[in-house]
């Protein structure tokens, strides 16, 4: 897919980065709240971090102009 310019993996990286930052940010904010949902397991924090890490990896690895 590199012959067509921007790789699809770059688009995926951008989207996961945005989602990861939003969800991780909310998870951190949630820590300041007095009550947590019973079955939450702080999922927003670690899942947001996973999405952010994956997004940054793909976003950087497949950035436009970078031949991978």
């Amino acid at each position, binding site marked *: 897919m590199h012959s067509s310019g921007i790789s699809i993996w770059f688009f995926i990286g951008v989207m996961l980065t945005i*989602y990861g930052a939003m969800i991780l940010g909310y998870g951190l904010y949630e820590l300041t709240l007095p009550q947590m949902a019973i079955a939450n397991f702080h*999922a927003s924090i670690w899942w947001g971090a996973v999405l952010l890490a994956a997004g940054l990896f793909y976003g950087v690895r497949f950035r436009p102009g970078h031949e991978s």
Partner: protein
Amino acid sequence: MFGLVPTSLFASGLHPASAAAIAFSAPSLAHLGPLDIAVIAIYFAMVIWIGFYLKGQANTSEEFFMAGREMTAWIAGLSFVSANLGSLELMGWAGSSYQYGILAAHWYWIGAIPAMLFLGMVMMPFYYVCKTHSVPGYLKLRYGQGSSTVAAVSFAFMTVLMSGVNMFAMAEVMKIVLGWDLNFSIIVSSLAVAAYVALGGLRSAIFNEVLQFVLIWGGALLVPILGLVETGGWSGFKARLAQNIATGAVPGGDYTHMWRSMGHFADNPMGIHWTGIVFGLGFAISFGYWTTDFLVVQRVLAANSLRSARLAPVIGSFFKMAVPFIVILPGLLGLVVLTNGDGSLMHLVGENVVAANPGAGLHSYNEVLPLMMVRYLGPGLLGLGITALIAGFMSGMAGNVSAFTAIFTYDIYQPHIVKHAKDEHYVLVGRIVTIVGVIISIGAAYMVMHAATIMAYVQALFSFFISPLLGVVLLGMFWKRATKAGGFWGLLLGTSVSIALWAWVYFDPSALKYVAFSADAKDMAENMYRALWSVTTAVVVNVVVSLFTKPRPLSELVGVVYGATSIPTEEPVPIYKNEWFWTGIAIVIFLALNIYFW
């Protein structure tokens, strides 16, 4: 649970009853916050951005309809699976696993994996070497224009109709889960799909399908993970389930084994026998869908080399085997973790019970996945989960629309309406047909809205065409003696037998004991055996007619038939890039899963 139907709801795994059930269920389950809305809005912005970005790379017909045949094995493979992974599949099969247990996983494993591997390793070389642009295109090369046109017209008609049915069902899901207006859901989602497919063609559809595939996993994977954490893993889940069964809180039955109750139709709640699963589902239905339905085959034809085309279904098979983790497992976990407001175990029921008790606060089986999402996913994550459902719907619809566009332009418009036009003309036709296809789909959605029973019948229509098509394609590909007349009559009589058997059981339910070999058989078993009858008829008729008619000379069959085609030798690659190596790994995992959950 695609039964005999190869696309959309059925193909993606939803039984007609489940589809209708989802469509007519009750009130909204979840409420989205600003963060969730932002997640969904970003998704829509992203898919439109991709469509506009790729517009400049869809100028020729090869680019618009075949994505320039530039897809890598990974892109083609993920798109191949994503086009089949609809949101209704997620919800419908999760509901079925809550109701029937892990039996539902048959549709993901034996109902998909052997066929996907067979496509990649055995059939793909012929599809790829003859450079066909579609399955009807292959029929034209092998059997002539007649069979091709019949297959193209039926496929085009069914595809847009199923796209509409899918659209309506999805809008109903959004209404149930979020309380969204039906018209809003239909218009917004279909406009987005129309925009990005019309702009960027198949390349845009495939790009978005890969994006949607990632989103589906990103949004849905968290539910079974958190469910297993809460129950103490698979062992903890089984212990809690056994306790619930012992106390009568959950109906008795074997929820965690796939083959033990397959000895007789009456031994399992699905009313299925192992012969139906193996030969009906595992061969007639599964091979028909995964190897001859252009909706999925189109993605593989867009691969950039024969090796990529062969690897793509193999890569897809690994993800297909993993899908039960985000579909079946949440349904099973729902049996032990879903509780009412007072802490008591929640009991999901059939749609008829929900409908008979309005205002009682009951939820149907099909709502198990949204209920699990609401239980585990907080702000932002819930938006991601809902986005996964929307993405699933849009990938399925884009698959239908892009396949319809290619079939109509290449196999109906070009051979029958305008034969010799410039390439740009066919690209323009393709863009227009994309829009028209979406408009027809919207019309079909509103038609279903006013006549719900159409939904079940439309899906039966699919069953009439795919299995006989399998018989005709297989013989054409592997038997040089098969003739034009044999292919045509095989397709016609195979279809006729399928329709006749369906009508027989419809008007006389007692005929089930003849069609499905047991009076205890249920709908899904009937679909399996009817598919088997249909493909058998197509093969037998094709053989008999071919033996009495004149075969084509061998020189005309080069590139389309085994024995008359030399498969290009590919450059040697390290073992970890070899398609046979990964096929072997897939077979081992497939067998291990079936043995572990025997």
